């Protein structure tokens, strides 16, 4: 770790985790997280107002915990980064307001960054600098997308995304049908290990020859699994929970990995990054490994704690913004619940000319891979 690498504190409040991370360049120094997931569990999903209230309570203590964990002084920071979107509007606003106040009080540059780009950039803390371009599969309760990132600070291109439910949402819904509680991912992963993934042939959405090659759909799968379970129950038969979990999970990860590997081949990218909460799924990791190996693709998946929402990922992207001299955000920075993935950060308007940003997207695809 070089002392001249940027020291950045990152704040993440887009959903139910209040995360504050500190990194120096691509080295993780602290990753403090306060979660309100237990409060949401009895509601079967994240309740936005409960999440926002919890963020306000946890914000300053989590910042202070992260600084202590990192053993650095706030005065030594080179920048403050914060998720400015996408996410829950009220929840984002708590983090953005805190980050602005912190940056202003300390006289540090502020970087409002994109949550999805952060999910990709976090892998720098695990496996070192990202190759350019990077192919990323992001899967969580809120998003399922395939992204191609020639430059994580300035150029992220969506190749495909879910047209209905996010992958993690499907896990939550099936867990609910099976009465397994919330969140559904970890418990289905655990039960599936004791089940037969081939027991039931559930449908693979959007995998026909005429379907969009990189888009996902999990709504049909969810309905099909629920109907299968209901039919068993209606017939008075016991539901083979482990086999259902394994077969459902297999349908999800089969589609995810198949499409991700295909995108790598089509775009000539020789490695794949997987991030987001669902990247903690053991079967997704195993199948992705197997298929990537077969295709000669190098797989990069951060450890589970860095896959779920956290502040370290925001700090990682913030550090990259500082390292590449990207323009900081200004004090008017707002929370944008639908910030497009094509905007890795929200530069200030003060001293820029408006078209700066668009030019980056005009670089022809061929230039990037030559």
């Amino acid at each position, binding site marked *: 770790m070089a002392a001249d690498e940027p020291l950045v504190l990152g704040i993440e409040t887009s959903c139910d985790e209040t995360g504050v991370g500190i990194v120096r360049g691509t080295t993780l120094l602290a990753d403090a997280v306060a979660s309100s997931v237990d409060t949401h569990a009895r509601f079967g999903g994240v309740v936005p107002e*409960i999440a926002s209230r919890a963020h306000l309570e946890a914000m300053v203590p989590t910042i202070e915990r992260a600084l202590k964990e990192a053993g650095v002084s706030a005065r030594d920071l080179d920048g403050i980064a914060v998720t400015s979107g996408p996410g829950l509007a009220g929840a984002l606003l*708590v983090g953005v307001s805190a980050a602005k106040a912190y940056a202003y009080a300390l006289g540090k540059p502020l970087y409002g960054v994109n949550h999805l780009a952060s999910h990709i950039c976090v892998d720098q803390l695990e496996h070192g600098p990202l190759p350019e371009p990077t192919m990323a599969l992001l899967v969580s309760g809120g998003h399922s997308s395939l992204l191609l990132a020639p430059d994580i600070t300035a150029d992220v291109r969506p190749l495909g995304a879910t047209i209905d439910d996010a992958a993690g949402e499907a896990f939550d819904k099936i867990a609910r049908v099976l009465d397994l509680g919330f969140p559904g991912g970890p418990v289905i992963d655990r039960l599936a290990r004791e089940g037969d993934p081939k027991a039931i042939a559930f449908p693979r959405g959007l995998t026909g020859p005429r379907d969009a090659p990189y888009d996902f759909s999990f709504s049909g799968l969810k309905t099909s699994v629920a109907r299968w379970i209901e039919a068993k129950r209606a017939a008075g038969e016991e539901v083979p929970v482990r086999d259902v979990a394994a077969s459902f999970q297999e349908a999800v990860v089969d589609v995810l990995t198949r499409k991700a590997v295909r995108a790598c081949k089509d775009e000539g990218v020789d490695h794949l990054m997987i991030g987001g909460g669902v990247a903690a799924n053991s079967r997704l990791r195993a199948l992705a490994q197997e298929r990537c190996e077969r295709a000669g693709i190098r797989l990069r998946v951060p450890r589970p704690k860095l896959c779920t929402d956290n502040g370290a990922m925001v700090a990682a992207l913030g550090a990259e913004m500082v390292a590449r001299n990207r323009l900081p955000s200004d004090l008017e920075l707002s929370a944008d619940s639908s910030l497009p993935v094509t905007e890795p950060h929200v530069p200030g308007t003060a001293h820029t000319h408006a078209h700066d940003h668009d030019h980056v997207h005009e670089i022809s695809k061929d230039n990037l891979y030559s």
Partner: protein
Amino acid sequence: MDTATPAVTVALHDGTSVIASSGQVDARRHGELLLPAVDRVLAEAGTKIDAVTGVVVGVGPGPYTGLRVGLVTAATFGSALSVPVHGVCTLDGIAYAAGRDGLEGPFVVATDARRKEVYWARYEDARTRTGEPAVDRPADIAQAVAGLPVVGAGAVLYPESFPDARGPEHVSAGALAALAAERLAAGQELLEPRPLYLRRPDAQVPKNYKVVTPK
């Protein structure tokens, strides 16, 4: 600073008087407006944030999303600058301002709580609240406060229930800071900087999942 009403208001107070202040009314942009307002006020006063020795923030009651902007900003300033952060009930700030405008007690302060309700409290005089702030439908409290002047946007919004409506409509940070300075000088304790929501979050425990098999 206070963000518990549609006003985004910031003032710098030196313990004796207000040196600079800013007030903008925009119920939807608290997050964007607050920090630039802080910056403007400090610039107008010719000073920097490091010179601030304490932060006073309105703790509401007020619509939650906006309210939290002021509270988290104040708390973060407190942590970054190592200075104390004090809470003051937003309705107390409005009462204090009404008193300075010449209103004598008793009176009521009411702000807009949305959903056809008001946040309100009774005042003996401009500095003395009697009882805790509450949230109610105007018609439900009209009788209890009949004959009293009612100060604030909550009064202006519901003239049938509050015929004697008075200004100011929103809180000003100058009044909030002056009240806090007065109380601190008198050795009185201020509130913890924690939000007065007065309502539980809207959330329902789902009964069961929706059966998808067609009947």
